[in-house]
C-alpha cells in the first residue's frame, strides 16, 4: 500500500527531525518549568485541543502536515513511547507520567492516529471496519483517558456509623471541602477469613518452619499437622467485639504428649494468647484477613437525589455524576470499625472512555477473527 518513493524517504527524515525536536523541547521544558501539571489541560482546554485535532481530519494526506500521518511516523512514536515506558517500568519513583517529553509524545501519537484515520476515510471501504474500530476506538480512549483525566475530581470521605458527612478530602491537595454529595452510614460490616494457627518462634515472632511456614485453618472441628504436632480445633469463639479465639488440642507425634488450651490473636483491646510448646516455640493465631467489607449507606445530592444501597469493593454506587467506592476502614478496629472511608469520583469523560474501550474490544475481536496479512 505505502510504496514510498525516494522523496518520501527524504520527507520521513524531516518528520523524524520534528519528532526529535519536540521530544528535546519536552526535556528543555521539564528543566525550565518542572513536571507537567495536568490541570492546565482541564476543561475547556482539552475540548479546544479535541476540536483542533478533529480539524486535522480535513488535512490533505500529501501535504506537509498530512505526511505526519504515515506508518513510519507511527512506528517511530511507538518506539519512543515504549522506551519511555521501559524507563518507567524499571526505575522507581521515575516521574515519567508527569514529564513533558512523555506528555508531548502522547499528544504526537494522538495527532498521528487522527491523521491516519483521516487518510483512510478518503478511501473509505466497509471492509476496513477492523481498522476503524481499532484506531478510532483507540483515539477516543487515549484522548478521554489522557486529556480527560485533568477533569477528574476525587475525594476521600470518612463517615462514622449513624452520622452524615458532606465534606471530602481532595486526594491531591488534602484540602477539606464541602461536596455536592452527602453520605449517611447506616452500618459498616465485615466478613473475615477464619484465622490461622501456627507455631511461632518467641524470640523473633517468625513462623515455623522458617522460610516456608506451615499454617492451619481454624474453624470448629478443623485439624492439621504443624511440625511434629497433630492439632485439632475443639471450639471457636468468634463474634463481633471479641477477639477470635480457639481451644486447641495438640498431640506430639513423637512422644505422645498432649497440650491443650485457648489461643487468640487478640484485638484492639484484648491481648493475644499463646500456648507454649517449649522455651522457644509456642502455638499462636494469626490475625484474620478481611474477606468482604461493605457499607450500608444512604446518599443525598444537593440536587435532591436520594439513594440507598450497599457499597463494597468492586461494587461502587452511582449517584448522579458521582461514583462512590468503598475505600477503607479503621484497620486497628477491623470488623468493629466505627467508620468507613469512601472514595468519591466524578469523571465527566467516563462515557467516552467506555465507548473507546468497547470499540477497541470489538477491534480486538476482528484481529482474532481476520488474522494476519495474507
Amino acid at each position, binding site marked *: 500500500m505505502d510504496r514510498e518513493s525516494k522523496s518520501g524517504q527524504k520527507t520521513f527524515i524531516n518528520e523524524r527531525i520534528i519528532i526529535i525536536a519536540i521530544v528535546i523541547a519536552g526535556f528543555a521544558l521539564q528543566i525550565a518549568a518542572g513536571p507537567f501539571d495536568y490541570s492546565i489541560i482541564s476543561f475547556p482546554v482539552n475540548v479546544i485541543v479535541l476540536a483542533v485535532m478533529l480539524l486535522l481530519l480535513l488535512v490533505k494526506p500529501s501535504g506537509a502536515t498530512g505526511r505526519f500521518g504515515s506508518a513510519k511516523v507511527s512506528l517511530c512514536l511507538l518506539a519512543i513511547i515504549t522506551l519511555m515506558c521501559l524507563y518507567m517500568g524499571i526505575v522507581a519513583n521515575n516521574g515519567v507520567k508527569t514529564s513533558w517529553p512523555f506528555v508531548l509524545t502522547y499528544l504526537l501519537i494522538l495527532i498521528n492516529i487522527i491523521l491516519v484515520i483521516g487518510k483512510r476515510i478518503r478511501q473509505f471501504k466497509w471492509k476496513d471496519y477492523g481498522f476503524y474500530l481499532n484506531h478510532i476506538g483507540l483515539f477516543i480512549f487515549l484522548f478521554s483517558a489522557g486529556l480527560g483525566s485533568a477533569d477528574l475530581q476525587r475525594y476521600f470521605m470518612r463517615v462514622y456509623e449513624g452520622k452524615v458527612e458532606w465534606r471530602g478530602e481532595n486526594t491531591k491537595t488534602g484540602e477539606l471541602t464541602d461536596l455536592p454529595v452527602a453520605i449517611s452510614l447506616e452500618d459498616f460490616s465485615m466478613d473475615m477469613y477464619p484465622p490461622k494457627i501456627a507455631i511461632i518462634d518467641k524470640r523473633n515472632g517468625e513462623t515455623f518452619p522458617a522460610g516456608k511456614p506451615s499454617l492451619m485453618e481454624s474453624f470448629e472441628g478443623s485439624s492439621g499437622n504443624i511440625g511434629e504436632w497433630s492439632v485439632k480445633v475443639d471450639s471457636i469463639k468468634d463474634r463481633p467485639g471479641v477477639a477470635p479465639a480457639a481451644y486447641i488440642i495438640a498431640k506430639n507425634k513423637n512422644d505422645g504428649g498432649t497440650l491443650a488450651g485457648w489461643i487468640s490473636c487478640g484485638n484492639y483491646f484484648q491481648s493475644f494468647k499463646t500456648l507454649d510448646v517449649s522455651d522457644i516455640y509456642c502455638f499462636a493465631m494469626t490475625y484474620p484477613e*478481611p474477606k468482604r467489607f461493605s457499607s450500608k449507606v444512604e446518599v443525598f445530592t444537593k440536587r435532591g437525589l436520594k439513594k440507598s444501597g450497599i457499597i463494597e469493593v468492586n461494587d461502587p454506587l452511582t449517584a448522579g455524576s458521582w461514583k462512590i467506592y468503598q475505600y477503607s476502614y479503621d484497620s486497628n478496629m477491623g470488623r468493629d470499625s466505627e467508620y468507613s472511608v469512601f472514595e468519591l469520583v466524578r469523571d465527566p469523560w467516563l462515557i467516552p472512555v467506555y465507548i473507546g474501550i468497547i470499540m477497541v474490544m470489538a477491534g480486538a475481536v476482528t484481529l482474532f477473527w481476520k488474522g494476519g496479512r495474507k
Partner: protein
Amino acid sequence: MNWNEFIFFALISIVFWYTGVLALYKSKSKWLGDALIITGLLVFAGFIVALWQSLGHPPMKTMGETRLLYSFFLVLVGYVTYRRWRYKWLMAYSVAVSTVFIIINLIKPEIHTTNLMPALQSIWFVPHVTVYILSYAMLGAATIGAVIVLYKGTEKRMGYFELIDNLVYIGLGFLIAGMLMGAVWAKEAWGDYWTWDPKEVWAFITAASYMLYIHAPKAGISGKKSLWILPLAFILLLITWLGVSYLPAAQGSIHVY
C-alpha cells in the same frame, strides 16, 4: 449438585475431549472430533449450571470455582479458535492445560476460599486472567515460529509467515482484550482504569512491542527483519508475567501480593 459429584462430570468431559482430539488427528470423519469435544463441553457446562443453581450465586467466588470456569472457558475458546483456524495442536494444548486445572481442583478444591482479598473478588477476575493466559500461549507459539524461521532461513519457510502473523494477531487481540478488561475492573475496584502501576506499564510495553510488529510492514520494513521483534517482545512479555515483582519500580505495586 455439589463438589462431590464433580469428579464424575470431570472424568466424562476429559474422556470426551481426549478422544475428540484424537479423532481430529486420526479419524477421517469430518464431524466425529467436533461432536466429541462439544459433548464434553456440554457435560462440563451441565455441572457448572447445576452447581450455580444449588449455590444460588454464580460459581465465581472461591479459587476452586474460578478454576472450574477457567477449565471450561479454556477448552471453549480453544475450540472456537480451532474452528476458525484449524490449528489442531491448539485444541490439544487447551485440553491439556484445562486438565491440569481440573486435577488441581480434584486434589485441592479450596472450595472454602483461600484468602482471596476483596479487590480480587470480581467477575472480571476469571476472564481477565484466562484471556491473558491464552494470549501468552499464542504469542509463545509465534515466538517459536519466528525463531525457527530466523534460524533456518526464510526461503524454505514461506508458509510460516502466515502462521506467525495469524498467531500474533490472535495473541495481540487477546492481549488487548485482557488489558481492557483489567482497565474496566480497575475502574470498578479503585475508580481508575489506568494508573501506570508497574504491572500496567509492563503490560503496555508488551502490547506496544507487538503493535510495532504488526505495523512494521506498513512502514516498509520487510517481513524477515520485523521477525526479530518477536523474540524481544516475548522477553518483555515474560518480564510482565513473571518478573515485575523483582523490579525496583514495583515496590508498592497493587499487582504484587
